[in-house]
């Protein structure tokens, strides 16, 4: 593992000095304890490599949940100048618009004893397909319908009765990125996307029934619609095979052109194209299609969750009161305006395993939340707590309006499976008060809490750094996993 020079510049900020082909310094947000984990893989080297991206401004950033990815580390943020900079599909990841959706309800823990929770989870496991090859949440789409989803995102779902306008207001970008261009989506991607709308996926994707366990800010939590012991539902999923295919298709298209662009990159997986090139525009157009697909996906899943709660608990929509708190993505590239060296400019912000964190007053925060800042949804590891946070002004000054996205792995899947051998994992989860419904034990073993960092440590770093602050802690009661 190559040595990476690090200098601690603040209690929770470490800098990789600009050297060699780095165009900007690297900056890592971490505590001393988390930094010990971070040094254990090649993620710092990747932060350094990202700093060589053409047009990168500010810093190559890393959140405290950073871990080794391919090209970009997971937990990385990089902004490139719109006019002169590059866009990198590896800076978004395969699972375009992997993100999190949180819905509140009028129920509290007293309404969901185990005798009701078990059957509810069983029905959710059926209603929201999960696992490899999952399909059939809604009827298989026709090509024209899929094209409509790619252009209109969540709105497609709402217009067909999968939710309401209020859901769109509480979704990042209203559930649709403009300038999505299906012309740059391959036939193979279309084929993969036709039957997967409304499906959860596998791996670290999940659907959780949670309770609000702790509130850090009563006023802000109240505005977000959260209350102590309230039942909420969290969905973590993305663009499924459709998005994965788009990433791969465009990596294949961009990689051979690096010499034509005059790009010398330290890692081929950082393959990037000028934003204003044909390949750059094509990738962004297709990426936006995948983002819109993912929002539609999560919108349909929430609708299925609402239907299932109502059917199993024998209550109507008003009594359930399952309103969307927020939906936010953590794998995306977006054109945003940020201040760099005292001047406002348009940049392409890559967030790969990092969540947008806009502060109070930002025009893109929903009206109802604007005084408090954008909700940020940070899932923990399976069976562990998750957090709702709010963006702070420091995010715009320090991280291009970004914060962490989750716990971050500290153990490989192989190691996690080894550590799980001989253990009754479902019993361990039950002892934590969590029921699990999963397609298989392999994923459960890979996703056990011991494989991850403690998300509380991660969010505390970002709070100490003035980027985002905790509003509520959520604890799982039941988990559905692919």
């Amino acid at each position, binding site marked *: 593992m190559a040595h990476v020079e690090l200098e601690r510049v603040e209690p929770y900020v470490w800098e990789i000095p600009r050297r060699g082909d780095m165009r900007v310094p690297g900056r890592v947000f971490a505590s001393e304890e988390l930094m010990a984990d971070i040094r254990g*893989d090649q993620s710092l080297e990747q932060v350094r490599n990202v700093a060589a991206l053409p047009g990168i401004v500010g810093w190559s950033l890393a959140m405290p949940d950073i*871990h*080794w*990815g*391919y*090209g970009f580390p*997971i937990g990385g943020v990089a902004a490139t100048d719109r006019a002169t900079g590059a866009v990198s599909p590896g800076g978004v*990841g*395969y*699972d375009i618009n992997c993100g999190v959706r949180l819905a509140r309800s009028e129920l509290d823990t007293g309404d969901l004893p185990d005798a009701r929770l078990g059957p509810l989870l069983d029905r959710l496991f059926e209603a929201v397909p*999960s*696992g*490899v*090859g*999952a399909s059939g949440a809604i009827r298989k789409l026709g090509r024209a319908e899929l094209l409509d989803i790619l252009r209109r995102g969540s709105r497609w779902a709402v217009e067909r009765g999968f939710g309401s306008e209020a859901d769109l207001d509480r979704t990042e970008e209203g559930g649709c990125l403009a300038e999505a261009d299906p012309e740059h989506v391959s036939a193979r991607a279309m084929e993969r996307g036709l039957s997967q709308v409304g499906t959860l*996926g*596998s*791996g670290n994707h999940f659907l959780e029934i949670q309770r609000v366990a702790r509130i850090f800010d009563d006023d802000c939590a109240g505005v977000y619609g959260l209350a102590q012991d309230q039942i909420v539902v969290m969905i973590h999923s993305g663009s499924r*095979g459709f998005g*994965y295919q788009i*990433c*791969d298709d465009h*990596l294949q298209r961009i*990689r051979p052109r690096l010499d034509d662009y005059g790009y010398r990159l330290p*890692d*081929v*997986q950082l*393959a990037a194209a000028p934003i204003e090139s044909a390949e750059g525009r094509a990738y962004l157009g297709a990426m936006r299609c995948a983002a819109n697909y993912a929002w539609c996906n999560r919108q349909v899943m929430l609708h299925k969750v609402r239907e299932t709660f109502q059917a199993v608990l024998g209550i109507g929509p008003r009594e359930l009161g399952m309103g969307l708190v927020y939906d936010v993505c953590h794998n995306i590239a977006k054109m945003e305006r940020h201040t760099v060296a005292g001047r406002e400019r348009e940049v392409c912000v890559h967030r790969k395993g990092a969540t947008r964190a806009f502060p109070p007053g930002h025009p893109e925060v929903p009206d109802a939340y604007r005084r408090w800042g954008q909700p940020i949804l940070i899932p923990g590891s399976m069976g562990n707590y998750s957090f709702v946070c709010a963006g702070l002004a420091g995010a715009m000054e320090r991280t291009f309006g970004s914060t962490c996205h989750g716990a971050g*792995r*500290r*153990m*490989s*899947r*192989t*190691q996690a499976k080894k550590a799980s051998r001989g253990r009754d994992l479902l019993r361990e989860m039950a002892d934590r008060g969590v029921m699990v419904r*999963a*397609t*298989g*034990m*392999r*994923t459960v073993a*890979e996703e056990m809490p011991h494989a991850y960092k403690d998300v509380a440590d991660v969010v505390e770093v970002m709070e100490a750094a003035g980027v985002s602050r905790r509003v509520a802690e959520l604890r799982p009661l039941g988990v559905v996993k*692919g």
Partner: protein
Amino acid sequence: MDRGAFEEIDHTADLGLDLEGPTPEAILEAAQRGLIQLLLDGTSDLAADQIRAVAISAPDLPELLKRWCERVYGLLENEGFVALESEVESADPRACKAILHGSMPPRDRVASASELKGVTYHQLAFEPVDDGWRARVIFDV
């Protein structure tokens, strides 16, 4: 004939294979076995009673390895076909031909497999060495 061999790579977030073999064909066959082992637990109870013919091409061997793995996974994801063994007639990137022998187990068996998001270019390699061939492929999960 000497079969190729695979070894799982330990990677924080993803899965990978290191491969070695006497021929490029053996490398691909080892990759198929290794990939299925990464994705599914215990396939010894499955009978290889189905076949699929594969014909793919690529500009070079590393890309061929990538497309081969994508094909093996694609059959799992789209058809529920678990490739248990493979016979690679030719690993010529211009015209690779192979037969996959496999099984179509119940749907929930496939659903419990690990899901691949992509076969990455990260450290992708497929090259001759002194005593045969070696390769590496990393998967995003």
